């Protein structure tokens, strides 16, 4: 069941939630105050690395008819696109690097290497998803208007195709994301403003023309007789990026135990309650340093949701503190492995394709978010 009062759900008093909020505020201030030359050097180095890698990939693909060159070029291009989209683009557009006061690395001017225009991403993701995280009917990221992810979402016959839509979304992820800010749910209900829709479609069209022109026409043409092999290389690199982005995003929000909320939660929600909702609505996964960079540190999804505009590579450092606070207050902190979380996500997607209670075995019904226990110390204090 979706939660309508996060404070009550977490067995915390108003004072405790406020105290917890102040602790999270203090972490933000500590990190903000410490931002400096080292941080700036990190993102500049990352951007330089990514651009060199992309240039090297494009040059290598001049020999795309030669299979080893195809493999090398495609891999470099795929990695460059992943870095650009997640560790650089996504994070820059969040305003994580706005503090540098550099208009070239700024949320207001960044445009990324994917079909969706940056402006629409910032609205659908930074504003809608990050403000109304996991609130049913407000956060369009719960299933992206295509999939049924939570038992609290109304079942429609189209959801029978959940596993198929899931596969299509994974493969064509950047196209799905491109349409995300149109708000498919609103269009379905006929609530979408026609003029706004036309404007958005035009903007998407312009962006798609540029992206498709570059990857599927100009660069292949540039490599002359290797047109076809360069085309397949570029398409494969885009597919690599699609599958990886999909994977990272899905395991961040849909594993077992992640909590969804009703609109009532938003009424008079305090800063402390907002923090709590962000923690309960996200899941972290473990990994090697390289995995974290490739995931834009979204593997620290809880920290990303608490502080979407603090530099991503500080999340591991922040996590030590946030995890300790969660333990202190008995707030669940979801941490698992990438494959494990994906398996749970996939299982949920399959189960949600049928209406609630219609599975042949009741035990197969999706697991409700875990009701967690307060630490004994706390209970004793209350008693």
């Amino acid at each position, binding site marked *: 069941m979706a939660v309508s009062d996060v404070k009550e759900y977490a067995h915390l008093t108003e004072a405790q939630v406020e105290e917890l909020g102040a602790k999270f505020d203090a972490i933000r201030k500590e990190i903000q105050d410490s931002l400096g030359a080292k941080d700036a050097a990190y993102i500049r180095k990352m951007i330089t690395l990514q*651009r060199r890698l992309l240039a090297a990939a494009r040059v290598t693909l001049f020999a795309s008819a030669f299979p080893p060159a195809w493999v090398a070029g495609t891999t470099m291009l795929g990695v460059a696109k992943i870095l650009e989209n997640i560790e650089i683009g996504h994070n820059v557009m969040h305003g994580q690097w706005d503090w540098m*006061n550099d208009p070239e690395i700024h949320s*207001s*001017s960044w445009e990324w290497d994917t079909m969706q225009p940056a402006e629409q991403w910032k609205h659908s993701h930074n504003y809608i998803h990050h403000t109304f995280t996991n609130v049913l009917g407000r956060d369009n990221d719960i299933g992206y208007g295509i999939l049924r992810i939570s038992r609290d979402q109304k079942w429609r016959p189209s959801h029978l195709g959940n596993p198929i839509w899931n596969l299509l979304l994974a493969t064509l992820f950047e196209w799905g994301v491109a349409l995300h800010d149109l708000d498919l749910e609103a269009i379905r209900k006929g609530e979408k403003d026609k003029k706004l829709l036309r404007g958005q479609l035009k903007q998407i069209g312009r962006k798609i023309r540029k992206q498709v022109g570059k990857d599927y026409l*100009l660069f292949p043409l540039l490599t002359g007789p290797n047109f076809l092999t360069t085309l397949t290389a570029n398409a494969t690199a885009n597919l690599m990026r699609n599958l990886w982005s999909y994977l990272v995003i899905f395991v961040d929000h849909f594993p077992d135990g992640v909590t969804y909320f009703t609109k009532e939660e938003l009424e008079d929600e305090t800063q402390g309650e907002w923090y709590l909702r962000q923690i309960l609505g996200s899941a972290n996964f473990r990994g090697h340093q390289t995995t974290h960079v490739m995931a834009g540190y979204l593997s620290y999804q809880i920290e990303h949701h608490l*502080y979407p505009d603090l530099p991503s590579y500080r999340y591991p450092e922040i996590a030590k503190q946030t995890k300790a606070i969660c333990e202190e207050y008995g707030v669940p902190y979801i941490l698992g492995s990438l494959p494990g979380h994906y398996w749970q996500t996939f299982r949920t997607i399959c189960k949600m394709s049928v209406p609630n209670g219609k599975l042949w075995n009741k035990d197969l019904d999706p697991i409700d978010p875990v009701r967690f226990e307060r630490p004994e110390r706390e209970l004793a204090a209350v008693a």
Partner: protein
Amino acid sequence: MSAVPGFDISPQRLVASTASAALALAGVAVTAGRRARRSAPAGKPLRGTAGRFTTPLLPDDYLQLINPLWSARELRGRVERVERETDDAATVVIRPGWGFSYTYQPGQYVGIGVNVDGRFHWRSYSLTSPPKRVQKHIAITVKAMPEGFLSSHLVRGLAPGTIVRLALPQGEFVLPNPPPEKLLFVTAGSGITPVMAMLRTLDRRRTMPDVVLIHSAPTEAEVLFRTELHGLAKGQSQFNLIERHTTKDGRVDFSKLDEVCPDWRDRQVWACGPERLLNDAESHWKSAGLDEALHLERFTASFNTSAEGGHVKYAVSGKEVDIDGATTLLEAGEKEGINMPFGCRMGICHTCTVRMVSGAVRDLRNGQETSGENTNIQTCVTAAAGDCVLEV
């Protein structure tokens, strides 16, 4: 902090103190802030085609990996040398990159953005190099202020080879062409810098009219360009230099102007220096009924960041309003009917970010103050901490 009498002035120019200049700078900021596509040596059609390949980036974003000056996305320059002028002042010679315009007029200033500890800080300084037809360098002269960390950094901490950001030259403090036949310059401290560019240009073009320069500095050692000024006075009889050392001679007393420059009523006047000097000059020429002849360039002490609230000008919409220290700039703007960008209203999504042309704001979440020029701020969590000009 108010301007201290004498020479304890910050060399940064509060351009925002005059309405027209503020809008002029806002104009620059608009060009600099958007994804600039200025004409660069490579030529427009070629750049357009190259851009089809590099989209969503510009060719410049890759070219600058080879040479940091090969980008016109943001104007930039490389520090060639830092020449010491006095104990606490230096001339910074900069080689601008693609897209810079050399068609500036002597007396204009240039915005310079310097990366200090990961952040870009912007200030404006008068160009001291005279404009030339064939030119590869520009120069600014900076006096280090005790409390001005950026000016100190420019004078003492700037290594040759450093890449800085630039804004196009701007400013109304310029001579007409041809120059008036009789001129009077009144300057103090680093207020000499725009006038030096004028003098150098007049000298270079051999069009020096009848000029009197009254220049003050605390002591002889602190007079900027002293050797050059005396050289000019020696070589050209129509240039008269009146040098004052205020620790000994006191500040300029305009009521005694007749003694040093009897024909001041016949002269067009350009004055630049601390607030008090300019206020004195203003009232003096006004009482003589000659304020038309007076041209001023104001300096200011550092932005007043201890203030609660302030006068806020929304430069693009043209609205102005006095707000308190508790109202966010977003709320105040919306109340004025301005179409302000907004999102989460809690400081996390950065949708509301706009450029502050100049001024000081306080982050209501942590009390942190931000001041300066060309700085991006989140309007949903900041309030005015002094007067501000916003580009919205």
